[in-house]
């Protein structure tokens, strides 16, 4: 029997320091056995358990799109035992990945529709995967207008700076980047994500909204989304929850009759309103 | 123990006078020789309160959660006014909590009650062998029990008392606002009090280790001992710290022993021998094995008793220049 608790060995191929605070690093992971990559097959929005033998596992959203073959990207914040170890690790070290886990963003449902992607801070990781996927040359024509609104505390805290620039340069998508407070070199938006979203006011006609960010941002962005006319069924969020097994057994991420690990982490706002307020 | 009516009357009075918002005492459970900790908010519910030799739990363990500022609470925290029924050991735990700044004295109205000791449910259950305890009555200094296989047995109440109650030195509350009843004078000398310690220490070293291992190996890590203990109020228990990680979460025997040794050390100079940990343990582990040894040493080496008054500093928060050094290694 296949054992869902066994991680695939992966080698840390590259470590990128993402922010000025140096507590966010992106790890490029390459499967030690190429056969494993073939069966891994993830979809943007899914996550994996990153395994460091001797320390434990952490559930982390997959930041790369399946269109970026050859490796997986994970952007990881330094918070505890496992992530400390990862932040101290060097390139070349072999760790493990268990997954892909959870429900993905509804990329089929998005076909033929406009997609508005709103992200804040460090919660931008699976949104990166989604944007890379939607804007990939093989997929781009399947989707309508793509609008991205992304904000961070300061320019130094923005993730994926090279890609942000590349997206802004593209003429087949619109990318709005904002920071709470800019520095002397900052020429973009200044202000919180809800305000900027309100200002750029993407149309909700024939569109889906994908929203990821810290709780406080979500709280203030939801009213804006409602004002823009996005229905709860068309508003897609991704939850964070403490997890262990990732396959709906261990009970840790249980909210109501759902398990965030297997029924989520991606939920529509409509689905979330059915759940008890316990996340 | 005919104080039950007094308990109800005092609780009702305090609630009616609005001296307290809620009153914590004991209520009947549906199980023989077991009561439930019970909080009432209205004098109409006062008749739910009971007082009998099955009122085992140390109610002081509930106080820090009730009285301390809830996590994330902003603004001026006004703790609720709480009335609590306190037998001797509970009152001593309250003293310890007040001295450790875990609960405010002025939020509490302590109804002290004279206690004649509590029955050890674990002991009675043991006497019935493999059958289940299904019924019990306590009357006239006797405990009569019936088992699922029909066996009936009667014990002297004294014989069925919890081991800690038999050597209790403070049957009346050491601190109280209202007092119910008069406790019988207890004449427990030090030798009798620490007889179990002496007996265990007499065993050979490796036999002690084997006995310790056997006792602790039954632990299931439910932490009932910790949670039932008023002294265990740490926000984060060392057993659950991850940096540094003292122990894992498994039932590894060495980790189990480290947990119980660590917990015993943390109780040093604070344990009032209320027996709550032993009564709470679903596996009936004799946790007093460790605590009583430390209690013995604290008393014989440093004198005085733990948590008997608000004024006296606790033994491990003081020292004397001439404290014993016989245990130390002197290269000469």
């Amino acid at each position, binding site marked *: 029997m296949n054992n869902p608790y066994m991680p695939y060995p992966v080698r840390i191929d590259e470590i990128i320091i993402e922010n000025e605070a140096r507590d966010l690093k992106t790890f490029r992971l390459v499967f030690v056995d190429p056969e494993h990559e073939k069966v891994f097959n993830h979809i943007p929005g899914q996550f994996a358990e990153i395994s460091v033998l001797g320390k434990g596992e952490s559930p982390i959203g997959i930041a790369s799109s399946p269109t970026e073959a050859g490796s997986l990207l994970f952007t990881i914040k330094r918070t505890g035992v496992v992530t400390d170890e990862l932040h101290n690790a060097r390139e070349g070290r072999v760790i493990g990945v268990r997954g892909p886990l959870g429900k993905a963003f509804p990329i089929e449902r998005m076909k033929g529709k406009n997609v508005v992607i709103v992200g804040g801070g460090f919660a931008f990781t699976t949104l990166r995967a989604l944007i890379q996927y939607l804007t990939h040359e093989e997929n781009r024509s399947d989707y309508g207008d793509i609008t991205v609104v992304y904000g961070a505390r300061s320019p130094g805290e923005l993730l994926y700076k090279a890609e942000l620039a590349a997206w802004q340069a593209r003429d087949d998508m619109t990318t709005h980047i904002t920071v709470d407070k800019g520095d002397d070199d900052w020429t973009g938006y200044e202000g919180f994500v809800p305000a900027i979203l309100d200002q750029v006011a993407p149309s909700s006609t024939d569109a889906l909204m994908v929203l990821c960010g810290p709780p406080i941002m979500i709280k203030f962005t939801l009213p804006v989304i409602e004002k823009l006319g996005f229905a709860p069924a068309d508003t897609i969020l991704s939850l964070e929850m403490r997890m262990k097994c990732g396959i709906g057994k261990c009970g840790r991420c249980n909210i109501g009759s759902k398990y965030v690990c297997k029924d989520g982490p991606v939920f529509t706002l409509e689905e979330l309103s059915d759940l008890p307020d*316990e996340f | 123990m005919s104080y039950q009516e007094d308990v109800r009357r005092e609780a009702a009075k305090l609630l009616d006078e609005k001296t307290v918002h809620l009153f914590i005492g004991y209520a009947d459970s*549906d199980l023989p020789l*077991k009561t439930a900790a019970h909080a009432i908010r209205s004098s109409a519910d006062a008749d739910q309160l009971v007082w009998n030799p099955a009122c085992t739990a140390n109610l002081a363990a509930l106080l820090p959660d009730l009285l301390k500022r809830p996590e994330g609470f902003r603004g001026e925290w006004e703790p609720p006014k709480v009335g609590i029924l306190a037998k001797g050991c509970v009152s001593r735990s309250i003293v310890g909590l007040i001295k450790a700044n875990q609960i405010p004295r002025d939020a509490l109205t302590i109804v002290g009650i004279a206690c004649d000791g509590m029955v050890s449910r674990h002991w009675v259950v043991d006497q019935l062998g493999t059958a289940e305890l299904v019924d019990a009555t306590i009357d006239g200094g006797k405990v009569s029990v019936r088992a699922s296989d029909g066996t009936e047995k009667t014990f002297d109440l004294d014989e069925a008392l919890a081991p800690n109650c038999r050597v209790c030195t403070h049957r009346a509350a050491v601190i109280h606002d209202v007092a119910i009843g008069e406790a019988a004078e207890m004449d427990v000398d030090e030798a009798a009090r620490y007889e179990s310690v002496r007996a265990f220490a007499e065993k050979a070293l490796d036999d002690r280790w084997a006995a310790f291992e056997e006792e602790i190996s039954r632990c299931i890590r439910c*932490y009932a001992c910790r949670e039932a203990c008023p002294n265990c109020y740490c926000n984060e228990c060392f057993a659950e710290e991850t940096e540094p990680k003292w122990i894992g979460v498994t039932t590894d025997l060495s980790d189990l022993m480290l947990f119980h040794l660590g917990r015993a050390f943390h109780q040093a100079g604070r344990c009032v021998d209320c027996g709550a940990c032993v009564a709470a343990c679903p596996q009936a582990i004799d946790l007093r094995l460790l605590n009583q040894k430390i209690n013995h040493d604290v008393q014989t080496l440093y004198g005085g008793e733990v948590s008997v008054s608000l004024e006296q500093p606790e033994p491990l928060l003081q020292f004397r220049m001439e404290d014993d050094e016989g245990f130390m290694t002197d290269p000469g």
Partner: protein
Amino acid sequence: MTVLKASKSDLRKLLGAIAGEKRLIAPIADRTAVRFAEIADSAEICLEYRNPRMSARSALFPQSEVLLTFDGETATDARPEYRETVLFGVRPCDARAFTMLDRVFRWEGTDDPYYVGRREAATVVSLACNESGAACFCTSVGGAPHDETGSDVLAIDLGDDVLLRPVSERGETLLATFAPGMTEASEADLDRAAKFAEAAKAGQPDVAIPTDLEGLKKLFDSEVWEEFAMTCLGCGACTYSCPTCHCFDITDEEKRGVGYRVRSWDTCAFPLFTLHGSGHNPRPAKNARVRQRVLHKFLYCPENFEQVFCVGCGRCVTNCPTGIDIRKILGRVSQLVASG
């Protein structure tokens, strides 16, 4: 299927024969309690006992179980060859609980290979209850003292003799292998067994179980949880002794790069259970944790598996240090649901 009859000494012989060939787990009377243990000598087995303090779930779902071992960067699956195991003497409530664990561990196409490995190697011979304990309420949650659910063989104590009723093919095979030529039970024996079954039910209380799930859902923000959380200490005595609780933690144990990844029981009663790395805790207060225990069993599991995850063994009632009684919680909650 034919019901067999054996004297108690023949039963011991039969168990001895099983222990000779398979792994046998059965109740023994320890220094302080009856507990399930691996049996070498069938004379150790305790045939008359109150329900053990701890449920039989650890036989299929051990409190700590190694998932994988590692040395440096290499991990190895730690699944052993699961030996054929006969689990003798579990009470019908615990046997029924296995069918609930089955639902979780074989859910939505994802099997838990460790549980399934043990489960598939296990034959459950349960021992019917002829009297109910003080905390028992199996009849209120769909069970019964002589319930067969989850058992492969149901043994019924008739005093000097024991009836062995095969319930599944696996049970039939077990009896055919180890009890060839054993006497068939007579009509009179079966009648006596039926009388015991009825008599055992008699002692049980009628606990109200909330069946209106929508109504129960509405109680999420009710103050009723606070009533019971007030005296809850937040320990795991209830959940760890529960035969249907199945939540676990996964941790690593390591010394100089060598060690294992292990799963251990965990409980929603501990605040750390849901504490995020960020410091956020979705269930920060005790009332939320008390509610989770009750609603998981009586609302979320019925929504997911069409049955309440409680078998009425009463262990949580017996073991609660402050005497919190799930039967009273259910009664109170049912009342509130009924009154809307």
